[in-house]
């Protein structure tokens, strides 16, 4: 039977192989996994320090988003070691003492031509951080960032392109013009 339908079987085999590579292999291979330089635990800071998202990731007075905090936010508490973990020691030796900014990987980094305002989404639309950032702020470790090998942009499914943004905007009747989100 194989001999008879050899062509079709090979064709179908090719299709299945392509489907497998395309759906499973390709997304994994396309993205580089870049680990974070410091092994930071959101959970410890939330539980032990009672920190909320906006304590470090807040809005400035002019409405711009502070993003990932600069070193001085960390040294506010971690000028000296606060615990006994090896990760904290590595952080203090590698960054606090030489006063070196941490080169954090940003999961949601957008291209230069995208304009996103946290102020709109937090203050006007009253979204929770987890609505877009998922469980990022609750983990004990920081997962490695997924960076697209070809374009260099974020490989995180939620932040790769406009789809997630447009879906939500459409559902809520928010602005959908180019001007709304592009510089």
């Amino acid at each position, binding site marked *: 039977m194989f001999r008879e339908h050899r062509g079709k079987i090979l*064709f179908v085999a090719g299709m299945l*192989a*392509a489907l497998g590579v395309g759906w499973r292999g390709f997304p994994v291979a396309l993205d580089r996994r870049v680990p974070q330089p410091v092994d930071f635990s959101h959970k410890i800071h939330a539980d032990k320090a009672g920190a909320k998202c906006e304590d470090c990731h807040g809005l400035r007075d002019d409405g711009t988003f502070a993003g990932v905090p600069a070193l001085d936010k960390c040294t506010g508490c971690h000028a000296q070691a606060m615990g006994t973990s090896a990760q904290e020691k590595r952080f203090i030796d590698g960054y606090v003492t030489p006063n070196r900014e941490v080169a954090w990987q940003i999961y949601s980094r957008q291209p230069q031509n995208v304009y996103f305002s946290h102020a709109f989404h937090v203050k006007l639309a009253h979204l929770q951080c987890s609505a877009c950032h998922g469980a990022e702020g609750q983990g004990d470790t920081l997962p490695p960032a997924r960076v697209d090998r*070809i*374009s260099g942009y974020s490989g995180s499914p939620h932040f790769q392109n406009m789809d997630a943004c447009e879906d939500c905007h459409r559902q809520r009747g928010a602005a959908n013009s180019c001007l709304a989100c592009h510089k």
Partner: protein
Amino acid sequence: MGFTRRDLLKFTGGSAAGLAFTPVPWRLLRDSALVSENWPGVPQPAQGEIRTRYTTCTLCPAACGVRARCVGDQPVSLAGVPGHPASHAALCTVGLVGHHLPFCGGRATRALANGRAVAIEQVLARVSAAIAQCGPDESVAILDARPGRAASQVYRRFLAGLDNGIYCAPPEAQPYGPFGIDLENTRAILSFGVPVLDGWLSPGRVLANRSHFQLIQVEADYSRTASLADLWVPVAAGDAAFAAAVAHALRGSGEDAHAADVARILGANQPAIAIGGGAGNLNAILDSVGRPGGFLRRRDYAPATDLAAVPDHSIQVLLAEESALPWSLLERKLATRNAVVVALTPWLDGYARHADYVIPAPLYLESLDEVATPAGSTAAGFSLSPALVAAPVGVMAPADFILRLAHDATSYADVLKQRVAALKKDGRGTVFTYSDAKSTRVQDIASTSDLWKTLLGGAAWVDDPVPQVSTGFPIPAAETGDPPLHSSPLMSKLERESGLRPARRYAI
């Protein structure tokens, strides 16, 4: 049976068909578009916290207030300061890109002696020696680009300590000597070649008042001001015969038709003033001195020596700031043998090309600087010009160089602090703060260090008005030397110190 080419083609065909049902082609298409958006050659702006900082522009004597929008510490755009007493809310076309100046090529970054890099100490030693060797007929001159500053006092004190010091300044820096112009109340301006709408005083102030005055432009060229004036008289600005004809017409006599037009407009729109080298004694006839709408005297004016009065070939050592005058005017005053020229300038062009020694000066925005009374202001003024960016290593402020030459251990920053202390002690005037457009009397400021901090955050000190008398207005000397200023003083200075030349003149 082996694996044949046909098998391979079938398999490949199946893969291709299968791929169409996967994200692969769409993702690759999108990624290729994204890659093409990010050619390595296209610069991306740096991101960072946006801050507003304040300073004062030092590029020309108008001394406009500056509001800088900064990303981190780097200014990315400049704007005027609303309510500023001298400049209103405006900057000129050059002031708007002052923050680009450090990136223009041709910067002097090392001290030079005859084109070779040397240490500043060597230049100090050689210049001191040259000064010491000056004989009784050989003068030491300082050309101060921006007279009236605390730095200017440093220059004067240094020259006063010599037997033969001459302090000079370009006339356009304090164009009316101890007088300012009450532009807010003027109703007619008779301008002999002055670029009133194109680089005179501060554009914000002039244009805010434009609708209040009739403008008569006497000028041979069809300049921008001439093309926008209410009356353009196409006569050379220095034409003494025309000024005399206008004087006759104002007294009711004379036959010149143009002069009659001018007199008619001036008569119907009082108070009127006459400005420019050709104005002669017209201001006396117009009675514009010491009256509202005319020339009002202010305090704190100390005249400089008119370069025309310096004998030719008498300057042995010249220390010149920036490129404040046409070189040909200076050249003929230099001694014929062994004259020593020191250029205190940020640029390799301009005076540096003619100088024996070049001391690299910091640029606008690079170091703590000051401005004196804004040109045309009817009250004395003072502002600090705080630095917004880092200066290149090795630059030295001209005032610091002169202080070192004088063996004075004070720094220029200390000199500025002393000036502010003197302001507080005198207790006169008000301070206008740029950030909130409020004015506070100096007496109500608690201490010198408070006044210093206020000025350092961006502020302008404005003196109180002074009682006026209608006495003589100094007749300005006729302009000599070539080329004549055909555009604003700021543009002329830019042309001298850079390779820039104006775009082709319009002969429409």
